[in-house]
């Protein structure tokens, strides 16, 4: 499932964001939503963050939300070499982002299953400790695909 969601045009190899809100804005860019839909999704993500950070620690954040304006489950992966202050649970900067968005009603709770896969994948990437050392975007994508195959 997660392997199918990984797409080259939804990878941000060098994120520019310095703050939490900038990171959310940058992460939804590859979804190519209309201004109207982008605004709604960003607001839903902000609301989700307001009830507790999705920065789960060890440099990982998994911002996620459901929204009526989305037609299907989508994943965007972002990598920040400098790190972003995302109010993570351990207080450390976030280097690896997995943005997961989905429509509210998805058959077979695909969204929650994928969210679980994303969490496992993120942890594996941290264990491998290679994601900040990849030579280029291609190598990073290859690493993501490889780890996705293991979860």
């Amino acid at each position, binding site marked *: 499932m997660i392997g199918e969601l990984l797409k080259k045009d939804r990878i941000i190899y060098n994120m520019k964001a310095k703050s939490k809100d900038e990171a959310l804005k940058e992460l939804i860019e590859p979804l190519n939503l209309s201004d*109207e*839909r982008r605004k*709604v999704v960003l*607001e*839903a993500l902000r*609301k*989700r963050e*307001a*009830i*507790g*950070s*999705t920065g*789960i620690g060890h440099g990982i954040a*998994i911002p996620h*939300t*459901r*929204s*009526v*304006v989305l*037609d299907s489950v989508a994943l965007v992966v972002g990598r920040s070499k400098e790190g972003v202050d995302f109010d993570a*649970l351990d207080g450390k900067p976030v280097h690896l982002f997995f943005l997961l968005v989905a*429509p*509210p*009603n998805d058959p077979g*709770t695909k969204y*929650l299953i994928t*969210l*679980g896969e994303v*969490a496992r994948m993120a942890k594996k990437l941290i264990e491998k400790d290679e994601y900040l050392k990849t030579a280029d975007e291609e190598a990073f994508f290859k690493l993501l695909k490889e780890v996705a195959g293991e979860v």
Partner: protein
Amino acid sequence: MDDVIEKLIALNDIDAMLKDAESEEYRSLGFETKEECIEKLKKMREEIASSIPRQVVKRYEKLRRKYGRGIAPVVNSVCTNCFMQFPTEVASRTDKNQKVEFCPNCGIIIYWT
């Protein structure tokens, strides 16, 4: 987009968030779902609901009880709640999402994508 439709979408998105936050499956993933956080979300929901005309909220709640959601997107001219295809003359209108509308088949509030 009409202000009320925008608020109904926000309401539906919060309802989906609440449903997740209260599920065991979600909690087991390790995301923060403290009781105070859920209360905060419920308060946000109340604030949004109170800014929507009473009759519309009433209908939204009724639809939510019936279908599990109060608003559904129309994708490629098809209502995603009942899968009814809208006639071309309706789907090609230029004033979509400018007022609250209902699917003529299932009655759900629609949002044109």
